């Protein structure tokens, strides 16, 4: 009995994202962006060498950063603040691996095609989507962020999204981790057990590219080599808001007023 008033004590704490922007912390580092500042060739090559996951590439004098490999350590931000900056924009996920690079490569129409196919595939799911998570060699923090989606702040159930215990009831598979050798087969079998249509989301840079662990005798450097991926959510680990954005992108539920969905306020 005493728990009932306890649950009501603080009123509504739930975010209204994606319908309304959420003003979650200005100091939260969700991604690194590239500004159009300038740097010398020497400065750029030092920054390229300092990146522990080799996420920065320089062609001619233009630097680009692969968010699918960036672990948000901030080495580049510290060295060349005029070029690299932390940003609290969480809408970083994409349907295409190549689209995780900033500044974004020129649109050649491939994204629209992939998105159209996925939108068609998930049409039947409507407003009831069941998620299944599989850990394929994570560091454990990704699981915390996924579990946070069920806390009262993010509360995915308000969006008709539920976690399910069985792959046989799942529409969407969230995969975390570097793609460890031991999980290759269980992962494949989980995906096989899911009914069609199915959608696969790679969660975090480790699942996308292996992150800092990379490739080795026990890691395949991302889960993409063993199963097809529909949506990539960068982050190390991916924050709950980034997860929400990626999941909504996968099931075509982002509000349509902007191509990447309602942007969070970049509070300053």
């Amino acid at each position, binding site marked *: 009995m005493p728990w009932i008033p306890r*649950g009501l004590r603080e009123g509504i704490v739930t975010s209204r994202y994606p319908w309304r922007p959420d003003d*979650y912390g200005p*100091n939260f580092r969700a991604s690194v962006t590239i500004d159009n500042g300038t740097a010398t060739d020497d400065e750029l090559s030092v920054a390229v060498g300092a990146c522990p996951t080799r996420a920065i590439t320089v062609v001619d004098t233009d630097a680009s950063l692969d968010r699918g490999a960036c672990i948000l350590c901030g080495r580049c931000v510290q060295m060349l603040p005029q070029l690299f900056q932390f940003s609290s924009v969480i809408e970083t996920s994409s349907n295409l691996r190549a689209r995780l690079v900033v500044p974004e490569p020129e649109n050649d129409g491939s994204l629209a095609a992939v998105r159209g196919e996925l939108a068609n595939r998930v049409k039947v799911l409507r407003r009831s989507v069941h998620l299944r998570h599989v850990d394929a060699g994570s560091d454990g923090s990704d699981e915390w962020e996924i579990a946070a989606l069920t*806390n009262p702040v993010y509360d995915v159930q308000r969006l008709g999204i539920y*976690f399910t215990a069985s792959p046989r009831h799942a529409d969407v598979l969230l995969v975390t981790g570097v793609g460890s050798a031991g*999980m290759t087969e269980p992962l494949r*079998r989980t995906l096989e057990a899911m009914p069609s249509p199915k959608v696969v989301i790679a969660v975090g840079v480790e699942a996308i590219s292996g992150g*800092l662990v990379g490739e*080795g*005798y026990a890691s395949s450097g991302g889960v993409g080599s063993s199963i097809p991926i529909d949506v990539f959510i960068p982050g190390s680990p991916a924050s709950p808001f980034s997860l929400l954005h990626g999941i909504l992108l996968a099931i075509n539920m982002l509000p349509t007023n902007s191509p990447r969905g309602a942007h969070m306020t970049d509070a300053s």
Partner: protein
Amino acid sequence: MTTYPTTYTTPVDRFSDEVASHVRSGARFAGLFASAEGADTRLTALLSHSGSLVIQETVVPVGAGEFPALSRQVPAAKWYEREIHDLFGLIPTGSDRVDPLVFPFVTPAIRPRFGSGAVVPEGQLDPTPLTAHVRGEGVFTISYGPVRSGVFESIEYLVETPGEDIPHLRTRVFYKHRGVESRFETLDVADGVLLAERCEGVASVAHAIAYCAALEEMAGVEVSLQAGLVRVLHAELERVANHLDSIVRHSEAAGQAVAYARFSLHKERVQRLRAQLCGSRFGRGVVVPGGVAGPPALSATEVFAAIGTLEKSIDADTRLLMSTPSFLDRLRGTGVLDEDVAHHFGALGPLARGSGFMDDVRVTRAYGAYLHLGQQLLEVRGDGDALARQRVRVQEITGAFALMREVIEELGSRGGPSSTEWRRPIENVSGRAVGWAEAPQGEVLYLVEAREGKLVRVKPRSASFHNMALFPIAFPKDILTDFAFIEASFGLSIAGVSS
């Protein structure tokens, strides 16, 4: 004063007896590790005497391929021997069991042999199913995992049961082995801390502190008090977050919907405070070799206020939860770990303290700013059950808030950021050293070897690895529906068990 290790070296045939004699004289066995040294292999045993750490070493020459098993005299060494067997191919002679543990290679010739710098080809796993141990009418085996029902890390439990009791339980932890130790060998000392943060992601700060402590010892650098205080602030927030996570999982298992919502809200707020302080919800990037990246992003007054609000709301809910009979009934008498087992095994963290075995390296081998902060070992009446472990965590949350307040007062009373040396340079360091920290799960150890600023060998040992071996021992008196409680009360991270 922090006491750094004394090292003894013995021939390989005397090694196990020497280590065992330390344990008989009251030392806690803290781990057995291997490193390739050319073609030979060096074995390092760590022994924790009260207030100091002793290292016992031996070299297994190339061609010998075996060493006298330590686990015959020190059972806690068994998992370490199995790990060494998997990754180095050394056979502990006289051990009754060298089943694969962290990575069962199909090809015995392929071993990573960490420290050799060799590039290991992609390993082929041997996923042979385990055979049943228990015989009897109606006994069957439930293979639970590695893909489990819920958002969990991958691990396989083999539960042999006649239906309700659990006479036998085994674990297989190798599924998510990533080969982190071989990755360390390609990094320099500054980047190594980033990987240390990702060995066991929920204890990033503790792993970073232990890793950096080893480097600082090697370089003879003392971290400034202010930087040490900032480390404590983040480490204690990490402790609160982990203990809240354990309470969330207990509440979920007990079907306490409101408690689940409340405590997951508290945990989210802790994660947000951590992000406000440093930009990362897991405190990543704060701890760097030689100190910290910088001061907290919030002022002392702001942190003080935030912590006060958090503590007040957590405390109110904890009081209610710990007097909710339908919750306590599920924990009382569940997953009992006897004191003598905990003591004999050298159990770590809240698991050990719930069983009355008091060891917390923040006190017994105090490091960094903990040396300057007034604190005591928190005595908890040890029934050794899930409830006792829960009580330990509840007390540690209170203790963590007290420590954080002390830290903020100290930080506020000292000079501003401009007069502070947040980070002292560590470059081109060479040598070997051991570092440690008390993670929320218990003692984390790092053995680090570097040459001119490049890492040669890094061996992290998380408390989760050491404690996981005790997991099956806590089951015989319990039934299947207790499983979730026992697992939550152990509070281990599988990433730390097999990294």
